[in-house]
């Protein structure tokens, strides 16, 4: 049929997403209850170029996925597409059995995306930043924020200074504290360790391990493998297009 070509790929994308949802539900019935995040045949464009093609993922409770690949291979694009910040050209993402194409609300409140740079207001202190950032997700007590900041190793004096005066590593620690405070199931992390010192990297590995033990899921774009590697570790190597 001629008209098969016709309309933009979007409508096809919608159909694929629905099909994926159905088969995912069948999978659950077949006893594979632990699959929480499933990505099927994902395709994402930047401009006219398909940066991501045929991406397939299955992640369950307590699993850690490491995204590897050279610069420009699409690690950030994949994370941003999952976070809902980029439009998906075709393919589907299923979260907890429901396709994101139809309903994103559960996914939004159960996931947190951390980009390259810590999303902090330079004029606010670390405490204020977290109050306004994570406070939008759930009401926070001040002592909770201070406890989380202490846990990620930010000294008390630095917690109250405007974040413009903090080092890059300290700012990164503030955004790790956001992960703890948000209490979400899925972490989407873009090179979370780059600005951290050796001590900070070990601390981060500990946070991830704790998160996975509690039934969380983490997806992280990394240049060097996380050490020590979590037990339930998967790796996806993206090739430069």
């Amino acid at each position: 049929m001629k008209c098969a070509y016709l309309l933009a790929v979007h409508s096809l994308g919608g159909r694929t997403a629905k099909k994926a949802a159905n088969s995912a539900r069948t999978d659950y019935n077949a006893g594979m209850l632990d699959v929480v995040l499933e990505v099927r045949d994902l395709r994402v464009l930047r401009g006219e170029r398909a940066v991501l093609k045929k991406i397939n993922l299955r992640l369950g409770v307590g699993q850690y996925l490491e995204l590897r690949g050279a610069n420009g291979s699409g690690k950030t694009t994949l994370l941003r597409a999952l976070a809902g910040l980029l439009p998906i050209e075709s393919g589907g993402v299923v979260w907890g059995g429901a396709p994101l194409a139809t309903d994103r609300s559960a996914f939004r409140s159960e996931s947190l995306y951390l980009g390259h740079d810590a999303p902090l207001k330079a004029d606010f202190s670390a405490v204020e930043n977290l109050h306004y950032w994570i406070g939008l997700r759930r009401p926070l007590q001040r002592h909770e924020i201070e406890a989380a900041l202490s846990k990620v190793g930010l000294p008390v004096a630095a917690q109250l200074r405007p974040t413009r005066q903090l080092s890059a590593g300290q700012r990164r620690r503030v955004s790790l504290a956001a992960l703890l405070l948000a209490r979400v199931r899925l972490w989407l992390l873009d090179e979370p360790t780059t600005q951290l010192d050796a001590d900070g990297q070990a601390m981060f590995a500990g946070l991830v391990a704790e998160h996975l033990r509690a039934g969380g899921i983490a997806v992280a774009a990394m240049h060097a493998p996380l050490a020590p590697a979590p037990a339930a570790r998967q790796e996806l190597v993206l090739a430069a297009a």
Partner: protein
Amino acid sequence: MRHFGLLLTRDLRLAVRRPGQTLLPIGFFAMVTALFPLALSPRLEELRGIAPGVLWVGALLAALLSLDHLLRDDAADGTLEQLVAASESLLSLVLAKVAAHWLLTGLPLALLAPLLGAGLGVPVTAMPGVILALVLGTVCLSLLGAAAAALTLGARRGGILLTLLTLPLAVPVVIFGARATKLVIEGANAAGAFYLLAAVTVLALTLAPLATAAVLRIAVE
């Protein structure tokens, strides 16, 4: 509602931390209106005729001056991306942004207008009307400006483009607002002009935030 309140207090608190940036449009407005008597004539009767035009064009330009920061700062430091990723609806974000912009720019401009108007020969009896017209008009300007700011968020030369997009949209507000101000100054019945001004503002309040929220999602891509 909690989202709206939290986002609004965030923006107001940030504005207090950056007083220079916050007061700039207000200073600009005062300066521009003060220049007209110097360029034209010191005679109040002559200035009274052009006072509505001066006040309205001055307010429009001052509001435009601060629009560039409305979303660009949040986009630059990554906080906008967080808000977009976490929020099912961006309506409360847009309304909070517009409210903050109006409280920090529109309202001070409207309250400052009588003071500047006195220098342009505006009679004291007309002051409440002058304030009311600017209050209504600046709400509309903040709403339209937010839509334009979202459209130009990722654009090259976004600042100039923002002005180019906002000015034609602002034409009806300026016409109705300046007319209402003129009638108030002349002591005539200004009800018709005020109704039209209010109608345009209500229309902008119903439609502009929806458009802005939709545009914001595309803008952060």
